[in-house]
């Protein structure tokens, strides 16, 4: 499999295959994420309900797939996989949810207290029905991730794979580094 496209999001900037596509240097995440969403000119109101981590993964995958005719490319969406890693799991969303625990716990916040919801959000957005998996890593370990992805691809049921890291931690540091792999 080859890398079809690579997206990196960090420090209020978006890069595609190394080139800067969007930047709001110095801006806080909420403002940055909203501006990126607006710049993509898509109508997906559920975006506003997502946790910070999910917004990050959602935006990265939008860039990953946006100039591609996925209707033509993803012939069988049960053969498109999403295998991601994160460092802080959903800890930032956990803290947000826990603030409501003393009063009336919020179901809309609780649903984001799982690391793999971001893979679900990406799957729903693009109708991707292949394997989804979320690994947790102390440091971004591309080798561990790609070792696993190769075993998945070798099995022969996967034509494309979105893979990489989507991390939003409890100190509001964030980093997305995702690739689309394909034949």
């Amino acid at each position: 499999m080859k890398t079809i496209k690579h997206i990196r999001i960090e420090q209020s900037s978006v890069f595609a295959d190394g080139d800067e596509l969007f930047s709001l240097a110095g801006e806080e995440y909420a403002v940055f994420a909203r501006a990126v969403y607006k710049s993509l000119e898509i109508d997906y109101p559920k975006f506003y309900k997502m946790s910070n981590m999910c917004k990050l993964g959602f935006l990265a995958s939008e860039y990953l797939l946006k100039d591609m005719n996925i209707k033509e490319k993803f012939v069988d969406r049960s053969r498109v996989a999403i295998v991601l890693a994160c460092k802080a799991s959903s800890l930032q969303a956990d803290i947000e949810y826990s603030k409501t625990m003393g009063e009336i716990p919020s179901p809309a916040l609780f649903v984001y207290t799982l690391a793999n919801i971001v893979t679900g959000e990406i799957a729903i957005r693009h109708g991707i029905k292949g394997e989804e998996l979320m690994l947790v890593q102390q440091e971004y370990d591309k080798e561990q991730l790609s070792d696993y992805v190769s075993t998945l691809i070798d099995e022969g049921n996967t034509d494309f794979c979105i893979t990489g890291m989507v991390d939003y931690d409890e100190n509001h540091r964030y980093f997305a580094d995702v690739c689309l792999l394909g034949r």
Partner: protein
Amino acid sequence: MSVYIESGNIISPLGFSTEENYANILSGRSGLRLHTDSRLSDVPLQLALIDDALLESTFAAVVGDGSGFTRFEKFCLLTVTCLLKNSSIDISSPDTVIILSTTKGNIELLESYDSRRLHLWHSAALIAKHFSAYNKPLIISNACVSGVAALVVARRLIESGKYNNAVVVGADIISRFIVSGFQSFMSLSPEPCKPFDAKRVGLNLGEAAVSAVLTRTKLGGAEQQIEVVRGAMHNDANHISGPSRTGEGLFHAIKDALAGDKVDFISAHGTATAYNDNMEAVAISRAGLNKVPVNSVKGFFGHTLGAAGLLEAIIALEAMKDNRLIGTRGYSEHGVSEAINVIKDTGRHEVNSLLKLASGFGGSNAAVLLRKTR
């Protein structure tokens, strides 16, 4: 290259070994009981919780000094220590990887600990260090399919030749964080749960720490082994909390896990929520498996989250070795839209292969096929 499950350990309210858990199930005992602990919930709840005093004394006797470890960490260390007593593999060898499957780890300490300790990688690193693991642990946090996902991932990594052995650990403990969230989803049953039953009103939460050794080493002679034949995971691409009404992802997972092979028994996720059980019935039916006996053991253990898939796979393979089908505790009147073969009572039945299913938030679904082999 074949991959086998060599051994397994279960720490649950029904016992601290696989044998004890299995014997208790056969005698019809459940780990569920009414708890009135105000630290967990303002209202009384049916939960399957592990007794703290028993954990402490067992940990001290089996592992050693428990000071410095959290409750979650103790469970993980205890199950792996017990597991290794019945295993021939070397956990510290370069051939072995530890795989931790959990949804929330130490989350109960959210307000009382520094955040470092709450990270799932921290728990995994601590387990790896305790057992002097050579390789970096792999951590899977994939909601309620984590346990089955861990089996699928372990099988692939061994089959590819990356490792010879995997020590798979699945654990979650019950805290106010988890209880309050499920309460906010209104998915908890005030009574012991009734999987696939017409009167089911929701799930019960439970805790367990479970571990298993997967290996490529075939035992010599005629001894029976359990092969992890194939596994698959598929997303519904439908909703982040609601299961697909068409059983889409689970249907694909079943299809890929079977790949045309036949199966004698299905260990369902069977949480006893209205939507989950019906979705499973639809997926099983779509796969043409209406006649295959199906059970859920949630009535014995509750829903043990990141441990569930592994726990239920080990119970299912114990029953398979014993040629028995375990009845679905809580099931009496068929309550799902499809005519699937839900087992009511435990009884003798020849079983040579089984399919373990799991589904969870995020639209995730997983299935793994286990089979007797010589």
